C-alpha cells in the first residue's frame, strides 16, 4: 500500500505533503515515515492511504505520473 506523508514543523504552519512510503501495514508505514522523513523536528506528521484520497478536481493518476504525489 502507498501512504501519503503530511507534516508541519510548527503549530499554525500549513500541513504539507512531504512524500510517500510503501508499506504492508499502518505500523510499518508509521515507522518508515518517521525514519525516512526525519530531516525536521515535525510537530505533526500523519499518513493517508493513497486509495483513501477523495478526488475533488484533477486526475490523481496523472498527478502521480507528473510526480506531484511521490
Amino acid at each position, binding site marked *: 500500500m502507498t501512504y501519503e506523508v503530511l507534516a508541519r514543523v510548527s503549530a499554525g504552519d500549513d500541513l504539507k505533503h512531504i512524500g510517500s512510503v510503501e508499506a504492508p*501495514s499502518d505500523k510499518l508505514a508509521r515507522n518508515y515515515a*518517521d525514519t525516512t522523513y526525519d530531516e525536521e523536528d515535525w510537530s505533526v506528521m500523519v499518513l493517508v492511504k493513497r486509495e483513501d484520497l477523495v478526488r475533488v478536481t484533477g486526475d490523481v493518476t496523472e498527478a502521480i505520473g507528473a510526480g506531484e504525489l511521490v
Partner: protein
Amino acid sequence: MSDGWPPEAVDYVQAIADTKLMLSHWYAEQAFIGPNIQDNIALFSLTQDEYGQVRQFFLQLEGQGLDGDRLRSDREREEFHNAATTDEPAPDWTRFEVRFGLTDRAAHLMFDAIVHDDFAGLTEKMSEEEYSHFDFHDGWLEHLADAEPEAFRAALAESLPDVLTFIGPAAYDDDTDPLVTAGFTDRSAAELRGAFLDHLEGIVEGTAVTVPDPDPVALEEWDERRRRVAGGGIGADVLDSIRGTGNEEFAVR
C-alpha cells in the same frame, strides 16, 4: 529502593546491555538484509537507539564497580552475556525479524521491570525510543506470520526457546525470583514470560501460525549470569568487529 544492587541485578543489567550491544551490531551489520530501502534506514535508526542505551547501561554498571574499558572492549567472547539469539547473524529476513525482533521485545520487558532508583527516568526514556522499534518489528512480524507462515513457524521453533531462556526460568515467580525479592524489579521472570507470550499470541493472531508450547527452562540447567542453558557465544570475527580490531591504527588515543 536506593541502596546498592544485589549481585543478580548486576548480572541482569549486563545481560540486557550485552544483548542490546549485539542487537545494535546486527542491525548495523545486516541493515541491507531488509527488503526495502525504508527497512535499511529504519535499521540504522534502531542501531543508534540500541547503542545509546548500551552506553547508559554500561555507565550504570560502572557505578556498581565494573570496569568500563573491560565492558566496552577488553573482554573475551565468553564474557559477553548476550542472549543466545544474538550470537550469530540471521540467514534471511524472516529469521532476522523473528530472532532479533522478539529479542528486542524481551529486552524491553526486562528493563521496563527495573524499579531501582538508579534507573528512575532512564528506562522511561528508553521505552519512548522503543516505540519505534515496536512499530517496525511488530509490523514486520505480523506481516511475515501472515504471508509466510511456514518460514515463520520454523524461525519461531528455532528462536523461541532461547528468547524465553534469556527472560528467565518459569520457576522464578514473585516469591522466588531473587530480583523481585530484592526489590530490584517488580515483575518476576514468570510474569515477564507470560507477558512476552501474550504479546506473541497477539502477533500471530488470525494467521496460520501457532505459538509452540513454551519450555519452562530448568532452573538447575540455567546459567544465571549468561541467561542461557547451553554454552556458545559470539564468534571471533564478531568480537574483532565490536573491538574495532581491524581499524585500531586509526583510533584516537
